[in-house]
């Protein structure tokens, strides 16, 4: 299978994630769709790493995974804090960032 097919899958997954981020209003699902986009980036990085035959792209992919894990933990912390303060779990309702 040529590298181009892997890149095509990564493009499709990235765009599906973009649709999800734009249409869903539940912040949990928006975070899931961000994960989709990051994973599509990972697939492209690993595909290019295979294309060049050196491991640099795989290290990039690992760093992306670290960033995604941090983003998820902080994002879910925000969701839990919203739930505790009885705020609506809806990104369209939350237009202001306040302390």
């Amino acid at each position, binding site marked *: *299978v040529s590298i181009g097919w892997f890149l095509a899958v990564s493009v499709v997954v990235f765009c*599906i994630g973009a649709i999800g981020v734009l249409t869903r209003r539940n912040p949990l699902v928006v975070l899931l769709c961000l994960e989709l986009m990051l994973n599509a980036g990972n697939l492209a990085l690993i595909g290019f790493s295979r294309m060049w035959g050196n491991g640099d792209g795989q290290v990039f992919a690992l760093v992306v*995974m*670290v960033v995604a894990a941090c983003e998820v933990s902080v994002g879910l912390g925000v969701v839990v804090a919203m739930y505790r303060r009885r705020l609506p779990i809806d990104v369209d309702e939350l237009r202001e960032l306040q302390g």
Partner: protein
Amino acid sequence: MGEVLFFFAGAGAIGGALGVIWATNPFYSVLSLVFHLLSLAALFLLLQAQFVAAAQVIVYAGAVMVLYVFVVAYVGGASVALTATRGARVLAVLFAAALAAELFIAVLGSGLQAVKTEGAVLTAQYGTPAHIGELLLTKFLLAFEVASFLLLIGAVGAVLLARRRGGLPDEERRRVSFYDVVRPGYTGTMAEGVGTAYHHEARPRS
């Protein structure tokens, strides 16, 4: 063999991604994402990235998804199955179609001849943990350290954001163990760290 595996893994990855945005219940979105991540790990294996595939399964499909399931169960997923209005949905799909066209042109229409091949000739140790570990500790040492520091900040931030403000409800507060009385104040429990401890209000600092 490779083609068949690629077909199934690629279809699983795309199908899982579609399931994430189609499911109305966030719980099913999470399960769909787990399926997507496992398919993606299979794709990584086809690209000879064994270590990243294993990390994907353990870190993502294991740890991160468990965190998601816990939060969905805590917040109560079914009641917030909301989507945007119809006009916004159409706009989003149009935007994504434009993005897809642009990315396909950028990725497949590029001048890179090697995209149409199966990749360079590999050394025997390509993608093994030894290879990745050596790269992380030599060429990418700074990125490695910054990533570990970022994980630390992420953990602290999550605890700070999700902690319980204003202490426990009264009923729970009365449950004081023997050690709470014997131990001097602020000598390190998790409850004190997030400000919900018994010592916090009930005893003067000594």
